[in-house]
Structures are given as structure tokens and as C-alpha cells.
């Protein structure tokens, strides 16, 4: 390996932490959205005529949950490109 100076080490650590950030950040959001969608499917099975209303509510709830994942995504992008 070529000369290992401070700037390169910092960049390497930045890339590593970008991966760490997105990886663990995606975990919780994915699990939560999955639970929301699951219960929505169960509700649609009980009242199939209300399918559009239930789907819309589910999407709103999932979008709010997604904001945490978006925070992690934005930080990871900034780490990759800084």
C-alpha cells in the first residue's frame, strides 16, 4: 500500500462510517414500515371496500416512518461526498 497520510485515513473512516450509518439506520425503519403494512393488509381483509382509504393511511404512516431512514441516507451521502 502507498503512503498512508492523515487525509486518506480520514476519508477511509468517513466512507466506513457512511456504510455503518446507512446500514443500521435502515434496520429500524424497515422493520417499522413492515409492521405498518402488515396491519394494513389485515385491515383490508376485514373491510375490502375501504381498501383505498386504508392504503392511503398506511402510506402516510410509512412516509413519516421513512423520515428517519431519509435522515440516515442524507448523512451517509454527505459522508460519501465530503
Amino acid at each position, binding site marked *: 500500500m*502507498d503512503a498512508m497520510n492523515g487525509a486518506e485515513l480520514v476519508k477511509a473512516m468517513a466512507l466506513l462510517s457512511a456504510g455503518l450509518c*446507512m446500514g443500521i439506520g435502515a434496520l429500524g425503519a*424497515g422493520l417499522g414500515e*413492515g409492521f405498518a*403494512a402488515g396491519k394494513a*393488509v389485515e385491515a383490508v381483509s376485514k373491510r375490502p371496500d375501504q381498501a383505498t382509504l386504508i392504503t392511503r393511511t398506511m402510506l402516510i404512516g410509512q412516509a413519516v416512518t421513512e423520515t428517519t431512514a431519509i435522515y440516515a441516507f442524507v448523512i451517509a*451521502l454527505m459522508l460519501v461526498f465530503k
Partner: protein
Amino acid sequence: MDLTIFKICAFLGAGISIGFGAIGSGLGEGMIAMQASKNLGRQPGASGKLLRTMVISQAVCETPAIFALVIAFLLLFKSPENATLVQSIALLGAGITMGLGAIGSGIGSGLPGVSASNSIGRNPATTNTTIILMIISQTIAQTSSIFALTIALTMYSKVFPNTIVSIGAIIGAAISMGAGATAAIGVGTVGKFAADAVGRHPQDSTVLTRTLLIGAAVTETVVIYALVIAILLVFVAV
């Protein structure tokens, strides 16, 4: 010395890949078998259908472990023609990606099979619709392990530049894709409720499939974020 490190990383990667990768599929298939046995006790008359469903769902749930096994074999038999430190860490990264990525997919594939068994135990007449919905949700839950497989294969065959930045990028991409694919457990939960619901109301299977696909697709976007970061790290930031 470089050759030793190459072999160490290759073997370590292979071990991690199949070692961690087998956890998810093992758990998933075990849960399926557990529910199948319970439902056999509840309704022994439907034993043919229950057994068939169990075998089909277990075979589909095996896929993430097969992917992990493929990466492990490829790593074991990799010929050392470019044995630098960065290439060795790339092999290790490939193993970590696939190993961690297959955990969530395995469990997420097992959950729909669990409630499909319950549905058939409750009402054996709905077997065919339940099996179809179960297979659809299982395969959607495996999308995360497919993403992990592509990242692992890319790390396996790409020639990385010989700097320390590459090492950080590789490990980062491995953790990003590997941990991010654990969100497949959420996708499996959607499938679990879908298979349950179609057992209770088999006439609504079209609406349920559509809702399942929408919900699973939105949950999958989180894994796509992780995939985008991993691709950026492996191709652009290196």
C-alpha cells in the same frame, strides 16, 4: 506475506458468509416446520396439503442460504493472482455483505410460511390461493438478499485501487448492505399478515395482493437506500 493475508481473508470471508447466512434460513424454515407440526395436530385430515405447503415454503425460504453458499464456494476456490491487501479485504467484505444480508431475508421469508400453515390448518379449502400469495410474499422478502448477492459478486470481481480509502469504502459498503438487508424482516411481516388474511377471506385475494405489493414496495425503499449507498461506495467513492 500478502499471500497469507489473501488466504486468511478469503477463508474468513467464506466462513462468515455461510456462517451468518445460514442463521436466517435456519430460523425461517424452523418456524415454518413448527407451525406445520402444530397445525397437523389441530387438523390431521389436511396432512397432505399441510405437508405440501411446508415443503414448498421451505424450499423457497432456502434461497438466501443458497446465495450465501455460492459466495462461500467462490471465496474458497478463488485463485490468488492479484494478492494485495486491498483485494484481500475486498474478499472479506464480500463475505460480510452476503453473510449479514442473508439473515434478515431468511427470517423474512419464513414468516409468510408460518401464517400460511395457520390458514390452511384453519380452512384447508383455501390452499391454492394461500400458497400463491405466500410464494409472492416470500420472493419479495428475498429481494434484499439478491441485492446483497450483487454487491458481494461485485466486490469479488472488481479490481480496487491500492489505497486505504478503498478499505474504508469496502467495509462501509459491506456493513451498509449487510445490515440494511435486515429490513427484509419487515417485508416478511407484511407477507405474514397477507397470508393470514387471504386464509380468512380468499375471495378478496386480488385486492390483498395489490395492498401487499404496495406495502412491500414502500418498505423495500429503505433497502434500496442502503443499496444506493453501497453502490456509491464501491463504484464512485473508491
